[in-house]
């Protein structure tokens, strides 16, 4: 591969090199079309299987961009299924939601509507209706189970699809993305933290802010000083999904406290490590400056993997200019107090970097809404943003 200043557009000329319109970021009408053509059509990553490990465990996930909430429940048969959180009686939510994600457990493997006590099992069947004899002959319990949602899993991630009949299976939808990341130990790196907040910006503004490393030298001068030099490597576009390697200058002198933490746990993105847990598809040339793989699982999930660390960002649209951001960061559980401290240090550093990242987003949205500038100019290392814009356009205009 050539290392010219325009290497990515030479590899993917079909994306074009012109400026990108800001209209899809600020138009309520465009957002309505994204809801219909994207969020109600494609597979959406809604969690991890190990969030609901036991029979009867459930999680309710709000999906504003598809105008529904999904109950994800593990049955007595060990299988996770998904249903709309809507009662067949008079349409109330079956599980009372306390936020974007509501967790619960019922050993009987059922959920009960707290309005009139209708009971549904984890296969969605309506099990019990109080005073059932007062309903008329035309009412049949067998025909009034929970409305199912398509659910499938990949590498321990739970996906739902809100379409009545999905255009593609999850495996078909993921395509080469699935093989690229297959085998990474997502399950054993399960010690982490989560942040979430609402941002007054379009979901693509949030996506774009995380889908390039060009910003690191400026925004993260405080948390990760002088680490970004070599930029992106191994850009790979896979259908609607995209990935690349972010390479950092790993010999930049860390702060004294970061140096101690890196030696103890290696839980920070800017520490060097000897062993490899990465699949052979990731950093195939074994570059010494490889820091992490930055990938976008279309439409709204970013999965990053590195040695000993993986983290995700998800951008859930609430409105054309409002987004729920969820950040999750995972490492191996520490074994000693020293490692515990070092891991906490790395997580705090990462939290700071995320605060720096999210700080730009609302400003970007406000400025875009002024329509003072109607175009964005992308450089070659911002190819993931360009690909994202092309793919969204393709879906919305399909």
């Amino acid at each position: 591969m050539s290392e010219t200043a325009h290497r990515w557009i030479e590899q993917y000329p079909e994306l074009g090199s012109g400026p990108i319109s800001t209209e899809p970021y600020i138009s309520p009408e465009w957002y309505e079309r994204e809801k219909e053509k994207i969020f109600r059509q494609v597979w959406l990553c809604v969690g991890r299987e190990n969030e609901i490990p036991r029979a009867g465990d459930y999680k309710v996930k709000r999906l504003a961009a598809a105008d529904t909430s999904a109950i994800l429940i593990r049955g007595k048969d060990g299988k996770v299924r998904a249903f709309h959180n809507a009662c067949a009686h008079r349409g109330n939510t079956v599980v009372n939601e306390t936020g974007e994600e509501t967790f619960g457990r019922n050993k009987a493997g059922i959920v009960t509507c707290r309005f009139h006590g209708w009971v549904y099992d984890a296969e969605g069947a309506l099990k019990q209706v109080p005073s059932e004899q007062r309903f008329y002959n035309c009412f049949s319990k067998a025909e009034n189970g929970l409305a199912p949602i398509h659910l499938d899993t990949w590498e321990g991630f739970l996906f739902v699809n809100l379409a009545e009949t999905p255009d593609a299976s999850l495996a078909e939808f993921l395509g080469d993305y699935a093989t690229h990341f297959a085998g990474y130990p997502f399950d054993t790196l399960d010690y982490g933290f989560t942040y979430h907040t609402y941002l007054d910006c379009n979901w693509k503004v949030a996506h774009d802010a995380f889908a390039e490393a060009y910003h690191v030298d400026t925004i993260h001068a405080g948390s990760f000083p002088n680490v970004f030099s070599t930029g992106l490597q191994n850009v790979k576009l896979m259908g609607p999904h995209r990935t690349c390697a972010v390479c950092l200058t790993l010999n930049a002198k860390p702060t004294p406290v970061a140096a101690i933490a890196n030696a103890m746990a290696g839980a920070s993105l800017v520490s060097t490590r000897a062993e490899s847990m990465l699949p052979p598809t990731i950093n195939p040339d074994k570059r010494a400056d490889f820091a992490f793989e930055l990938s976008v699982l279309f439409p709204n999930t970013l999965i990053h993997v590195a040695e000993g660390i993986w983290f995700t960002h998800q951008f859930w649209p609430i409105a054309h200019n409002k987004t729920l951001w969820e950040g999750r960061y995972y490492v191996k559980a520490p074994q000693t107090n020293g490692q515990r401290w070092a891991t906490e240090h790395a997580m705090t550093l990462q939290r700071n970097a995320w605060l720096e990242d999210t700080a730009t987003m609302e400003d970007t949205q406000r400025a875009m809404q002024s329509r003072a500038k109607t175009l964005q100019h992308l450089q070659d290392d911002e190819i993931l943003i360009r690909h994202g814009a092309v793919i969204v356009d393709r879906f919305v205009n399909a």
Partner: protein
Amino acid sequence: MERLCASADVPEGEVFQVDLGDGRVLAVYRVDGQVYATDDLCTHGDASLAEGEIENGEIVCPYHMGKFDIRTGEATGAPCSIALRTYSVVERDEAIHLI
């Protein structure tokens, strides 16, 4: 005496279903070290109380959150209003028996 289950089947604060195979299905409990037994079927709905949770000496039905006093069978929380049948049990030789 009729053997219901092993002592180890019912840890402290837990409830265990015993199907005697003759139509009788019991819920066996251990609360503060003492063992108790009631009918397993909730008197309100179709739920197995062995799938409920024990809270402060009461069994909470998994279907509608109604409650019964484990010691007496008394219905102590709506929508349950009819008492549960209780059974006398004794723990002997690492097993729980119906008297």
